[in-house]
């Protein structure tokens, strides 16, 4: 904090570096601090920032709760960031060019306003489309809900031969025809935007060429999300893309996997204490699975374990198309099933380039890091405590 004696010297330094605008501001500030100190019958030399704050609270009491709205007196350096003070930002008269200069963060508020303008554009588009659609809607008598009833009709041999029908995976329902425009539009838009994510805080700051606080960043993201969720947001796709960063197709972490001479893919899989060695080959007809020289059904009597092993093939749409030979040891039944699943997933990445991203998205390539938690002294087990006794 500049003391009264060092005032002139530091002021001289500042005047050299920064805009003439700031010079007057700093002068005013120090004068005000002196006056305030005198009002409070205190020595201006020992008057700290905290004392300033207390003095203002005393002199200008307020029932407002928002800090931003309360009266305060801050050093101009704290209000005006250094990048704002470049000579280019000011006219010849010494007046700032940016309209929102005195907010302290003009880039942020300009962006907010721009988003508002984009929103207005989208709303106009929606209104226009609605008036067109209302004519079209009258022609359609009823919405076709045939897709919803698809799976409950009686089957005969003929229907089964159609390969157009999609199978269901473990009870997940195929997206049915709904009347919610938001979700489908957002879905469509996110498809157009491609696999991407919002810019992070530092990236956003770089883009705006301004320093953003955490709150400011959260506000921006929230408003961008709202814009994305609007029905007609296709219109502002370019604007939105400016704030999104593409996620590149995942690079495989770990070894690059290849098939060996016999056309087999080898990998190991781990889960808890179980370790599995897995060899996968492309099979003809029905795929065969052998585990420790036993058939899958004999080694895993539980349905859940078999489902776990089927899951990678399901994701890759290759159930029954691969032969698997594996040896597994350690752990228990579920751990071994998980280890085999991990091994199969890693091995499957060899067979096609497209399998890797799909398996990673499904979370199958990640080695599940959960292990048995250690027992702690003073407790019965890892988490269970001894019986609580009142006395």
């Amino acid at each position: 904090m500049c003391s009264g004696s060092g005032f002139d010297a530091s002021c001289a330094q500042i005047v050299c570096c920064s805009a003439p605008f700031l010079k007057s501001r700093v002068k005013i500030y120090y004068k005000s601090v002196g006056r305030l100190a005198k009002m409070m019958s205190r020595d201006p030399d020992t008057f700290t920032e905290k004392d300033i704050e207390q003095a203002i609270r005393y002199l200008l009491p307020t029932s407002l709760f928002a800090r931003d709205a309360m009266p305060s007196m801050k050093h101009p350096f704290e209000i005006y960031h250094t990048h704002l003070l470049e000579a280019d930002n000011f006219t010849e008269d010494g007046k700032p060019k940016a309209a929102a200069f005195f907010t302290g963060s003009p880039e942020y508020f300009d962006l907010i306003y721009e988003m508002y303008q984009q929103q207005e554009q989208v709303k106009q588009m929606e209104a226009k489309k609605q008036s067109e659609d209302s004519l079209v809607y009258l022609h359609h008598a009823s919405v076709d809900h045939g897709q919803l009833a698809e799976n409950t009709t009686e089957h005969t041999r003929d229907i089964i031969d159609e390969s157009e029908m999609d199978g269901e995976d473990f009870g997940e329902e195929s997206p049915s025809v709904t009347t919610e425009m938001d979700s489908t539009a957002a879905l469509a838009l996110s498809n157009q935007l491609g696999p991407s994510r919002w810019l992070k805080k530092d990236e956003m700051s770089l883009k705006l060429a301004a320093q953003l606080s955490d709150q400011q960043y959260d506000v921006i993201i929230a408003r961008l999300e709202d814009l994305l969720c609007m029905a007609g947001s296709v219109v502002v796709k370019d604007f939105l893309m400016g704030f999104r960063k593409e996620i590149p197709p995942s690079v495989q972490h770990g070894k690059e996997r290849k098939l060996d001479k016999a056309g087999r893919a080898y990998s190991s899989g781990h889960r808890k204490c179980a370790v599995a060695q897995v060899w996968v080959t492309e099979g003809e007809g029905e795929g065969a699975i052998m585990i420790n020289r036993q058939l899958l059904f004999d080694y895993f009597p539980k349905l859940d374990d078999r489902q776990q092993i089927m899951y990678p093939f399901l994701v890759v749409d290759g159930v029954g198309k691969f032969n698997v030979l594996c040896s597994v040891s350690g752990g228990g039944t579920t751990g071994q099933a998980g280890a085999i699943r991990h091994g199969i997933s890693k091995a499957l990445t060899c067979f096609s380039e497209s399998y890797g991203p799909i398996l990673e998205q499904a979370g199958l390539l990640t080695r599940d890091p959960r292990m048995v938690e250690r027992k702690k002294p003073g407790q019965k087990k890892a988490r269970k405590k001894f019986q609580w006794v009142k006395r």
Partner: protein
Amino acid sequence: CTIDTFIQSIKVYTMPLPRRQLRRVTFAKVVDFARCYVSAVPPRQRRQEVPIFQTQDSNPLNFGDRDLGKVYVTPRQAFAEVFPHGLRTAFMKEVQSCGQAGILIRKPALDIINQLKKQNRFDTSLKFIINGPDGCGKTLTLAHVIQYCRRANWLLVHIPSVFQWVYSKQEVRHSLHDPQTFDQPDEAIQWLRNFRTVNSSHLATLKTCGRYTWGKAEITKAGSPLGNIVDQGLQKPFYATDAIGVLLKELAQSRGHKILFAVDEFNGLFGPTSVRDPDKQTVRPVALPLYSLFPLFSLQLKLQSLNLVTHFQKLMNSLPSESSALVTALSRRGMFHNSSAGFGVRDLLPKWCLDNVKPYVSVRVEEYTEDEMTTVLDYYVHTKWLVSGYDHKRLIEIRFLAARKPLAVQQICATC
């Protein structure tokens, strides 16, 4: 009797009425009256739309090779008449929820039935041992054969589950007939009751050969109907097991009547039991050939045996040849003290048993074929057992998870 013939009979036999009364009694009223009276009679069989996978008629007598791979359906009531004890839990749940028992017609069952049809020409009695991997349909193959024999009016001696006797937790009593052996009154009574339900028509016609004394006073004379022995056992629980022994002895001596001896979980008759006697010792079933070969040893070995088991073991030795058949199904599931990885006849039955039962025919029941799989899934979709339907992808998934085993397929479809 159809409604038409009934109405015609009314027309013939009603008296001529005076004119003024005739006006009140119109033909429609007569028809209505007839319908109320005849409601117990089933209406004329219309040609119903039967799905592809189902047989046209559900009479097991009429099935042939053209019905292979189809499902035949028995309504729940009719099924309970033939199997008052029920079959496997999983299958009975399906019968309960679908209201009917659908059994797939498969080659092993048809082979057995064809052999039974030809039996008149052979001297030796036919013995079949149905074996195969777990959960593949051995019990249901046996059930199919039993239903055929029921329709063909055979006498049915059916043990639905040997393990229920041999691993039971029920009370065990010293036999009144031979104090060194043990009776199981609860199981015996239940079996006799079921036997009576299933074979009520035969019990009146078959007569006893020998004369039997029950305790001190009661006597069953020679030539009395077999039903008397069954009733004797039902009324006096302490004699129930002895009644079974007598019944089987009589049946073994009978000639001319067609008898089917059907035993499920046949291997239970020859292994260790988990029954405890009142002194907390484990009771063992006795090995019969040793008994017959070494009468001296038998006095010691005869200690601690279950009579229910020994009665049926003796029966195996002395089946009436021309008119009976023994059809048994093995079961590895539910067998105690079993460390064999295999499920064939030699794995589950001891050698001395096989020597006794020779010559037998081993009938193997395996997993579903591709066609059988699709038929069964069609049937499950039809009865809403498989609620969410299936297509080609799903078929592959079910095939992967179930390894085409019938029981596993049923369980997976139930959860879909």
